[in-house]
């Protein structure tokens, strides 16, 4: 396999960053490069044949095909929802290709079999797939490529429609943890997949989830056995590369009794003029006393300065606190995508279970964000906490939409919600739409929302101390989102702070 000179790559990334920053007015998206990798691409269009093709390509068992076809039939009866505060031309699914895979891809693989071009792509993104280097004890190998991930991270890399490599599998297998692509799980662990797939997000949950159920191509599968604390961060890195393709990944994470896992997700795509569709489904299941921490840094291509191009990101993420005292925590940093439609939620079914949602959503240019969470209290003594920080700049619209509801049987349900919006400039909009539903006299809910701008006094103070306007804005915004930042894994924090600065460039002056 190819031997990379890591420092050179690092320099290349730095140079590229500098160039991007300099060329801000033109295009400031650092991950906008396209990788020159030969691909198998399914011609655009969605029919029953498409579903059969994907299933066959994945060598799936009959039950999986049936599951997909059922979803496809239901999908045909559904209409695209219009309730979100989002405006975009109707997506013509017949224009979208539902399957694209690097040509070199030939099923389960070791790093040595991976196309060097592809590895290069991930290196460029700062994603360590070189477990040998890290395992061999080359200290800081991960750090030196400027990765957001520390050395102690296992990665599943999903390129267009397929998982290309999953690192650290053997290490994890030693403690009984299953970490692989969902396609592989369907073949190798059908009992787990059958039991849990669609058990949190039912097949016909909503328009996009139903579409995903019919055509999902790949994604990650995690199973943490009873009593195991996952020794490293697990992560999936999604990359859309092909033109006119949709990405429909499916992630399923199961934390069995008394287990713990922290999971990171990152995503990027090349800069393209046309819009691309991303409709993922993530299902989390936490059994008795289990804890799942799920962090996302979403940096899909947001479109250019005129609002051309960019990813349409319609994602269904839901966690089921199925066991007693289980705990699911969502942390998200949303900086990318032309359109974001995403509500990572928790079903607090188990007595004493706990749900958390920490979110930073930044919109600039012509981005539109409609995101938030749902906390559904079903069990007794359940609690939830929501901290959302929305920052709108440029011509963007940024909406927090959330639901907190306590079922009649959810005795002593507790929720605390804090939603803050910050407006930068007078051409953007910030909106807050919470649904607060208490159906139980013992429930106690507290919700607070504020909207403000960076005060002139704060700006002047920072400028007087020598910071320029962009530095001052970045600093103040990083302060504004601090309550959320501190819930990110250490590996993500620094990268996120930088990402915030980059996302807001060009928003002042």
């Amino acid at each position, binding site marked *: 396999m190819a031997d990379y000179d890591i420092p050179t790559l690092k320099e290349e990334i730095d140079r590229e960053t500098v160039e991007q920053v300099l060329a801000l007015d033109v295009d400031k998206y650092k991950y906008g490069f396209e990788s020159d990798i030969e691909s198998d691409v399914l011609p655009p269009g969605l029919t029953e044949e498409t579903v059969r093709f994907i299933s066959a390509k994945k060598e799936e068992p009959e039950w999986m095909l049936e599951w997909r076809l059922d979803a496809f039939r239901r999908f045909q009866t559904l209409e695209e929802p219009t309730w979100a505060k989002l405006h975009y031309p109707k997506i013509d699914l017949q224009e979208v290709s539902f399957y694209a895979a690097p040509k070199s891809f030939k099923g389960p693989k070791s790093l040595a079999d991976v196309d060097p071009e592809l590895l290069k792509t991930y290196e460029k993104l700062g994603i360590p797939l070189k477990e040998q280097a890290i395992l061999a004890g080359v200290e800081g190998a991960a750090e030196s490529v400027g990765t957001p991930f520390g050395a102690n991270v296992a990665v599943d890399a999903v390129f267009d429609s397929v998982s290309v490599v999953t690192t650290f599998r053997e290490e994890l297998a030693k403690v009984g943890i299953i970490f692989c692509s969902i396609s592989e799980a369907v073949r190798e662990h059908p009992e787990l997949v059958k039991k849990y797939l669609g058990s949190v997000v039912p097949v016909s949950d909503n328009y996009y989830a139903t579409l995903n159920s019919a055509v999902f191509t790949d994604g990650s599968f995690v199973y943490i056995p009873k009593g195991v604390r996952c020794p490293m961060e697990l992560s999936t890195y999604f990359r859309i590369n092909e033109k006119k393709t949709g990405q429909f990944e499916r992630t399923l994470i199961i934390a069995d009794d008394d287990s713990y896992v922290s999971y990171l997700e990152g995503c990027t795509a090349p800069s393209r003029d046309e819009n691309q569709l991303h409709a993922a489904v993530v299902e989390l299941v936490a059994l008795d006393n289990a804890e799942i921490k799920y962090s996302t840094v979403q940096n899909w291509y947001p479109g250019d300065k005129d609002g051309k191009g960019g990813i349409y990101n319609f994602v269904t993420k839901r966690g089921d606190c199925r066991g007693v005292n289980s705990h699911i925590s969502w942390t998200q940093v949303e900086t990318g995508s032309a359109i974001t439609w995403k509500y990572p939620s928790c079903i607090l079914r188990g007595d004493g279970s706990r749900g958390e949602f920490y979110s930073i959503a930044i919109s600039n240019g012509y981005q539109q964000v409609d995101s938030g969470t749902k906390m559904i209290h079903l069990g007794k003594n359940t609690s939830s906490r929501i901290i959302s920080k929305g920052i709108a700049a440029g011509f963007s619209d940024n909406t927090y939409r959330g639901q907190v509801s306590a079922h009649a049987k959810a005795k002593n349900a507790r929720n605390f919600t804090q939603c803050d919006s910050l407006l930068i400039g*007078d051409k953007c909009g910030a909106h807050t739409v919470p*649904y*607060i*539903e*208490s159906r139980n006299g013992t429930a106690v*809910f507290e919700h607070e929302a504020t909207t*403000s*701008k960076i005060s002139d006094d704060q700006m002047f103070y920072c400028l007087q101390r020598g910071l320029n306007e962009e530095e001052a804005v970045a600093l103040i915004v990083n302060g504004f989102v601090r309550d959320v930042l501190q819930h990110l894994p250490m590996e993500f924090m620094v990268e996120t702070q930088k990402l915030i600065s980059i996302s807001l460039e060009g928003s002042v002056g």
Partner: protein
Amino acid sequence: MRPAFPVRLGAAEETLIAQLKAAGADQVAERVTVAGLPTRRVEAYHYTDLKTLLRTVPPLAQPANEATGTAIRVPGAYALSIVNGVVQHAATAPEGVIVGKTHGGVLTHRDDTLVGISNGLTKEALSLDLRGTIDQVIQIDHRIEGEAGHVADATKIFVADDSSVVILETFSGSDAAHVGNHASYLALGKNAIVTHVTVDLGSRATAHFATNEYHLAEGAQLRTLVVHAGSGLARTHLFPRMEGAGAHADVTGLNLVSEGQHSDITMETTHAVPHTSSQPLFKSITRGRSKAVVQGKLIVARDAQKTDAKFMHQGLMLSDDAEILSKPELEIYADDVVCGHGSTCGKLDEDSLFYLLSRGIPKAEAETMLVRGFIAELIDPIEDEALNEALQGIVDGWLLGQ
């Protein structure tokens, strides 16, 4: 938006369509025919699904020329009345008050079925032109008398520049299953100071709908208080609009909801120009199996810089099986603003209750005391003593009655 398939129309809708057509309101009739009554999918009706809640609509009420009672009496008030939609003859008006009648509906056209029905069915409205400092409270008593009837009535009120007035509108009637669709349009001149209190004391069988529209010119100060304390189904939709710099509105409301009742206060405040403020404050108290809804949207227009607006809803649950549903909303397009909202929900504070009990106050009395304290913020600002007392009386009556 038109749904893809025509909706199935129920008895209530069939009656409404016939009534609207007979009144010549073909457009509204068409709207009801195509979309039906608003369901939970219509955001403003998310928690008050009229298609489910309003199964039948009685025939239009026969004109009546006499009220058999009144909701409340406020000593010293100048009383006017509208019975079954007919504006009654008025006693000699105090200085600065001109009482009149206008024909047809009073509400600004908007995308809302109840507004459409109000405008379509209202035959005449009571109009008031108010000028100067008017010390007497003006009470407009709306009554629905006799057999179950559907009534659309309205008031249209102009308050001149630099004038001040307190207006009370009360709603009540016989025990039949009435449907009342009431509209109030208030325009406040420059620096006008207006208090507008509306109280629903309809029967349990009644469905009470009210739409209140307010336009505030420069420096105008508005205080509203909506009290739902009667009808089985009550919904008041408030549309205050700040149209001049310095305008300020304290938009307040109280849902008092008992077994089997459903009360909804929905507000949409628009800050259309720079330098305006509003302070919406709503409270809901529920007991038995009941439902209270408060929705409050603050809209700040693109150029409405320096808007200062804070919405608050507090829910108090006196029973385990009640529901309090709240949807505060911010829709903000200007950056130099201070806007926010809060919503809390819970039961009586146990520490406070314990403190009172430990001082020897019996539980029921202690609870009453705390509930009164909870509501005080809404009632206290009503400065007219007689009106303040009357409102306190309604709250006490609700607390005593089960």
